[in-house]
C-alpha cells in the first residue's frame, strides 16, 4: 500500500510529534508513505478556498497533480486538507470547463491536473484499505476500561456525496475505530458539534469558549477518560484551546485529547513517551495513571 503523503501545513509546523507517530504507526500497518516534493497548503478550506475560488482550486489542483505525476493516491492526516483536495478533485473531474480554466492557470507551472488519482483521509485508509480486522491483529495492549469520546469533526463528513466518509448527523466510524482497540466509545451529547476552531480565529472568543465548554462538559458527563480526533485543528482546539478556555470558564475538570493514531500506537505497544504525550498542553494526572494501569 503506497501513497503520496500529504502532511498539510498545520501538522508539520505545529504538531510535528503527531506527524512522527502517525508515520511510524501507519508504517507498521503496511502503509508506505512517499514524501512527495513540492506540496503546499491544501489550501485551507474556510479562509482560502471559499474566498478566492480560482486561486484556491489552482493550488489544490497543483497539489493533486504532483501525486498524479507519481501515479499514487494521496493520503492525508487532516479533515480540512481532505475537504479541500476532495472537493477540487471532484469538481475538476466532473466539470470540463472548470478543469480547462484551472489548467490554463497552471500552465505557468510545470503541472497540469488530469484527474487520475483519489484523495483519502487516513481513517478511510484504515477502514477500507487496511481493514479493522487487520488492526485488531496488531493490538498488543487492548485499551480495556478506557472510555474515549470520539470527535469526528465537520469537514470530513460534509457533503457526504463528496466526502463519502460517515453520516454527518450520526457519525459511527470513529467509534468503531475506538472499539477495535478494546476501548469503549463514550456516548455523549452534542457529538456533531464543531470543535470551535473557526469561531476562535474569526469570531467572539466568549462564544467559542461557550461552545467548547458545552462540548467538554458533555464528554466529561459521559465518563470520558480522553477525547480522540482525526484532525489536527480539532486536536489543537481540544488541547491548547481547552487549556485557555477552561481558565476563562473556570472548568474544574479536564479531558485530554489524543490524535487517533496516538491511541492506536498505545494499543500497539508504544509508550506515552513514544506518542509524545508530554508535548500536550491539557494534562490530567487521572488519565495518565489510568492509561499506565491499562497498559500494564
Amino acid at each position, binding site marked *: 500500500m503506497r501513497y503520496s503523503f500529504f502532511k498539510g501545513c498545520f501538522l508539520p509546523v505545529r504538531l510535528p510529534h503527531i506527524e512522527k507517530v502517525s508515520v511510524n504507526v501507519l508504517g507498521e500497518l503496511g502503509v508506505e508513505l512517499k514524501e512527495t516534493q513540492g506540496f503546499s497548503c491544501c489550501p485551507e478550506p474556510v*479562509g482560502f478556498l471559499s474566498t478566492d475560488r480560482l486561486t484556491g482550486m489552482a493550488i489544490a489542483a497543483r497539489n493533486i497533480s504532483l501525486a498524479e505525476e507519481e501515479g499514487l493516491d494521496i493520503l492525508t492526516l487532516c479533515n480540512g486538507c481532505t475537504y479541500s483536495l476532495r472537493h477540487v478533485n471532484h469538481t475538476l473531474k466532473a466539470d470540463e470547463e472548470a478543469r480547462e480554466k484551472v489548467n490554463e492557470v497552471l500552465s505557468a507551472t510545470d503541472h497540469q491536473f488530469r484527474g487520475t488519482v483519489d484523495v483519502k483521509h487516513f481513517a478511510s485508509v484504515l477502514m477500507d484499505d487496511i481493514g479493522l480486522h487487520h488492526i485488531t491483529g496488531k493490538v498488543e495492549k487492548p485499551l480495556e476500561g478506557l472510555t474515549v469520546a470520539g470527535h469526528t469533526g465537520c469537514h470530513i463528513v460534509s*457533503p457526504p456525496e463528496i466526502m463519502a466518509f460517515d453520516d454527518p448527523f450520526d457519525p459511527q466510524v470513529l467509534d468503531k475505530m475506538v472499539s477495535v482497540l478494546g476501548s469503549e466509545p463514550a456516548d455523549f451529547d452534542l457529538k456533531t458539534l464543531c470543535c470551535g476552531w473557526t*469561531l476562535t480565529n474569526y469570531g467572539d472568543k466568549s462564544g467559542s469558549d461557550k461552545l467548547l465548554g458545552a462540548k467538554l462538559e458533555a464528554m466529561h458527563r459521559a465518563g470520558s477518560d480522553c477525547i480522540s480526533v482525526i484532525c489536527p485543528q480539532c486536536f489543537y482546539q481540544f488541547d491548547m484551546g481547552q487549556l485557555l478556555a477552561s481558565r476563562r470558564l473556570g472548568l474544574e475538570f479536564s479531558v485530554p485529547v489524543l490524535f487517533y493514531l496516538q491511541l492506536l500506537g498505545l494499543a500497539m505497544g508504544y509508550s506515552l513517551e513514544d506518542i509524545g504525550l508530554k508535548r500536550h498542553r491539557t494534562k490530567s494526572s487521572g488519565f495518565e495513571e489510568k492509561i499506565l494501569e491499562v497498559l500494564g
Partner: protein
Amino acid sequence: MVILVNYDADDNLSVVEASEICLKCGVCCVVKGHSCHAQLDGQFDPKHTYVYDCLGMDSPSENPNIWLCVSCHKCEELCPYDVSPIRFIESMKAEAFENGRAHPVIFGEVANIVSTGFAFPLTTSSRRQRQQLGLEPLDESAAEDLMKIAEITGLSEKIAQYRGEER
C-alpha cells in the same frame, strides 16, 4: 409557493435569488448540537439566527459575521427548501475578498500561503522541534509556483493592495 432557483457557486445574482426563498423557519440554526455552529457565537438567538443575519442584510458582503461560517454544510443538509445558506455566505465572502474587505486574519493567511506554501508563519521553534524528532525539514519549494499562480489570477495584486492599506 417555493421557487427553486438553479445556480452555481460563482454566480452571485442567482445565489442571492435562491436566498430570497428562505422562510425563516430556523431549522438550519436552532436544532441544538446538529445545526449551524456559528449560531453559537453569542450574538444570535432563535429569533435572530446566524443565517437570518447573513441573508437579511442590505449589503451582505459587508457583514463581518460572514467570516464566522465554518463551511460545515449543516445548513444545506438541514434546510427543507434548498436555500443553501453556505453557498450564499461563501459567495459573499468571495465578493468581500474581491473588494479588499476580507477579515484581516484571512488576508494574512492567504498572503502566507502564497509566499511560503504554509498557512502559518514558520518559526525557529517548529524547525528545531522537527530536527529534534528526526523529521525531514519543512518543504518550502512550492512557493515559487504559488507566486506564479497568484500573479495570473490577480491575487498578488490584491495582497499588495491590502498590504499597502495596512501600512
